[in-house]
């Protein structure tokens, strides 16, 4: 009851807020011209919202001051710095956007085309050529000039993808001690075909251990689906449903769940499940694979990780001796790159200041590391040019401020400090892989869901209903895949495929010109 009351209260506030802002908007435009010259001399103020995976400190004033010291000196912009946890972030930002509250710079957590199709974000191409030269240069250097294609729709650039190691090859992550105990050499794992033998050995030696970890959260983002995408070159064409994909480079949009790639992958998981390598309740459990491995109940899981130092980081995180082994390459489709994108709100009145700030956010070492690590001497101590550590006796939970776990979200990875003990060459390797990893021929295509919203919502439901049981091998693929596909057909999958094919053909034709 209480929760519902709060929700309705918020809604009414949203509506009142949008009323107010609508009125406010009108009065501002009339006075803008006269105040223009004055505004230039004044410091522009923008709101910048960052998702943080660390503890959110009560007091952000010190770090905000430090950020402002940098930004006012370098670009004459004052930043109102907001920090939200990952669970809150999208909600807070959406609420601000819907209510017309000031919110200038925010990031997507995977919803790029949604924001664009609802005109919630501002086109940036003109401002970028003027105020974002350094930004474009560093993106070219670290990823390649094609990166901005992934955030361009109808010729407008609507956002800047984060600049980091984007290639996430599929790794098998396993407990190395258990592997040794089972008497298997790590080098014997080269591809996914080698895994059943390893699981069998582990199961025989350690009957209480679950050889392969559960797959959960978002079924279209599981290790298995990502492995199929990378190993068989599947381009999801930017939405997450999987009903309209292109496999390989034939340009034909098909339903992934009708393909042999999918059937074979699911059959493989079914075989593992029937051999007892997975938990019985894999499809529904809420315990993550990482937690299983951490508690010593699990042996391994599949995950996409960039670089080669993952094992070290995970070992520290879960307290076990973790090693990783790459078993499939990565395949760049559009959403692999634009899933974390910084955008400027279409209602922002300070777009110029916002782009200036973005420029700095990707190129200024001092700003990036202040946002991530806080204040030198208080929140972190510098070890050498590239490395930092926490002050004596403190860790990520006890320092006054740190957002170090947001390193995959902020600016350019090549300018970030790394924690002590992480090999710097790994960052260089990641950047190299950004350029070497194969791009889908449809890299840059963005699907506009506007025409098939209804079908998308229905299809989402069907996918949620069938996919978790299938990707965990807990149901018989023969009969369930057929049921799944007929339910998808019912929900209008063909309309999505047709709409996508039409948009893709148009996009391809435009690329040739």
């Amino acid at each position, binding site marked *: 009851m209480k929760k519902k*009351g709060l929700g*309705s*209260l918020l*809604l*009414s506030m949203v*509506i*009142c807020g*949008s009323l107010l802002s*609508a009125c406010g*908007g009108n009065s501002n435009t009339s006075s803008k011209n006269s105040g223009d010259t004055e505004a230039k001399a004044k410091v522009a103020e923008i709101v910048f919202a960052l998702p943080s995976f660390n503890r959110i400190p009560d007091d952000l004033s010190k770090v905000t001051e430090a950020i402002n010291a940098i930004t006012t000196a370098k670009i004459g912009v004052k930043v109102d710095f907001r920090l939200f946890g990952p669970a809150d972030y999208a909600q807070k930002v*959406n609420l601000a*956007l*819907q209510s017309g509250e000031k919110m200038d710079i925010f990031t997507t957590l995977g*919803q790029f085309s*949604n924001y664009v199709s*609802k*005109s*919630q974000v501002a086109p940036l191409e003109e401002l970028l050529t003027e105020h974002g030269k350094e930004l474009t240069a560093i993106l070219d250097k670290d990823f390649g000039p094609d990166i901005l294609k992934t955030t361009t729709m109808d010729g407008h650039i609507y956002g800047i993808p984060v600049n980091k190691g984007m290639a996430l090859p599929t790794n098998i992550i396993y407990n190395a001690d258990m592997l040794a105990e089972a008497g298997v050499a790590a080098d014997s794992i080269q591809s996914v075909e080698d895994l059943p033998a390893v699981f069998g050995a582990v199961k025989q030696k350690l009957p209480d251990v679950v050889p392969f970890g559960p797959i959960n959260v978002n*079924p279209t983002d599981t290790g298995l689906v990502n492995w199929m995408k990378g190993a068989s070159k599947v381009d999801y064409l930017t939405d*997450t449903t999987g009903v309209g994909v292109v496999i390989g480079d034939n340009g034909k949009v098909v339903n992934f769940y009708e393909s042999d790639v999918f059937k074979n992958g699911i059959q493989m998981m079914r075989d593992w499940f029937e051999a007892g390598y997975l*938990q*019985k*309740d894999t*499809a*529904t*459990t*809420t315990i993550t694979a990482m937690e299983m491995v951490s508690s010593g109940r699990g042996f391994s899981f599949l995950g996409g990780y960039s670089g080669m130092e993952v094992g070290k980081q995970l070992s520290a995180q879960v307290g076990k001796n973790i090693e990783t082994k790459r078993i499939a390459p990565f395949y760049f489709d559009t959403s692999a790159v634009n899933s974390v994108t910084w955008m400027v709100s*279409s*209602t922002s009145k300070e777009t110029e200041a916002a782009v200036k700030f973005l420029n700095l956010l990707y190129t200024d070492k001092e700003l990036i590391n202040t946002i991530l690590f806080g204040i030198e001497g208080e929140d972190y101590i510098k070890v050498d040019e590239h490395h930092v550590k926490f002050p004596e006796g403190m860790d990520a939970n006890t320092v006054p401020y740190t957002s170090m776990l947001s390193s995959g979200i902020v600016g350019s990875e090549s300018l970030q400090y790394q924690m002590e003990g992480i090999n710097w060459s790994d960052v260089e390797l990641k950047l190299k892989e950004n350029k070497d990893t194969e791009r889908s021929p449809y890299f840059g295509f963005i699907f506009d*869901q506007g025409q098939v*919203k*209804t*079908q*998308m*919502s*229905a299809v*989402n*439901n*069907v996918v*949620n*209903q*069938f*996919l*978790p*049981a299938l990707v965990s091998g*807990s*149901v018989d693929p023969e009969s369930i895949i057929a049921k799944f596909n007929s*339910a998808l057909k*019912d*929900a*209008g999958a063909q309309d999505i495929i047709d709409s996508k094919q039409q948009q893709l053909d148009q996009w391809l034709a435009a690329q040739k010109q």
Partner: protein
Amino acid sequence: MTAKPKSKPLKKTLPLLILAGPGLLYFLINSYFPMFGVFIAFKDVNYAKGIFGSDWIGFKNFTFLFQTSDAWIMTRNTLLYNLTFIALGTVVSIIIAILMSELLNKLYSKLFMTGLILPNLISMIVLSLLVFAFLNADSGFVNHSILRPLGIPEINWYSEAKYWPYLLVLIQIWKTAGYGSIVYFASIAGIDKSIYESAKIDGAGKLKQIRMITLPLLKPTIIVLVLMSMGRIFNSDFGLFYQVPMNSGALYSATQTIDTYVYRALMQLNDIGMSAAAGLYQSLVGFALVLTVNAIVKKVNPENALF
């Protein structure tokens, strides 16, 4: 002198008004203000144009509710579950209330009442974990401590839909019946004790007293409460249908209701036009149902109708 009769009603009604104040304010803010936004259901919301400037698209936002064969399942589930909850909930609540009122020992009566109301205070999230502790496949109480020792094959509760209609009804009744019995309990307490005494003198037993006195006198209360819950028959307790079954896909045929469908469908799309359409649809059907049921009650027994 002349002012006195005027001020007296105010003096009398003021405390009542103050009492009603928070409730009125609640409805004003939460139910009447947002009604202003119903037009969003007919718009293709575009943030650059603002909600007033967005294009009108007629009933297009509503189509997603009826797009699939799920439409039938979720409507059926929502209606049947709610009807069951109303019917069974009312019966169980009345039974509890009557039993409670027969308890003469004040201490016991208070103890049981508290115990019965307590489940209502547990949040659905916590409840879902309690249920999980009973039903999880590996170490759940039912599988691990009941079925296994008895040699009965274990059941994978979270992937077999056929058990869930019973489970959900059981959970809902367990959670809400105690709380629901309060109003009935109060009504029974308000029944004139001398009626029972004279019935006793005439030789009526306990059961006959309940059948001939308590239930007929409870009728107006029952009708009002049932009418009120009719209005929400197209809404479902999201926690019960989403959290308690742990959002398990295999159970959708038994757990999908309009609310969970809307949530699942729009989680990705984040389209407020479509959400508004779903809300409007639920409210209108609820409104129509209240009017219909009230009309029927009026025809049968005009005194008991709500309005």
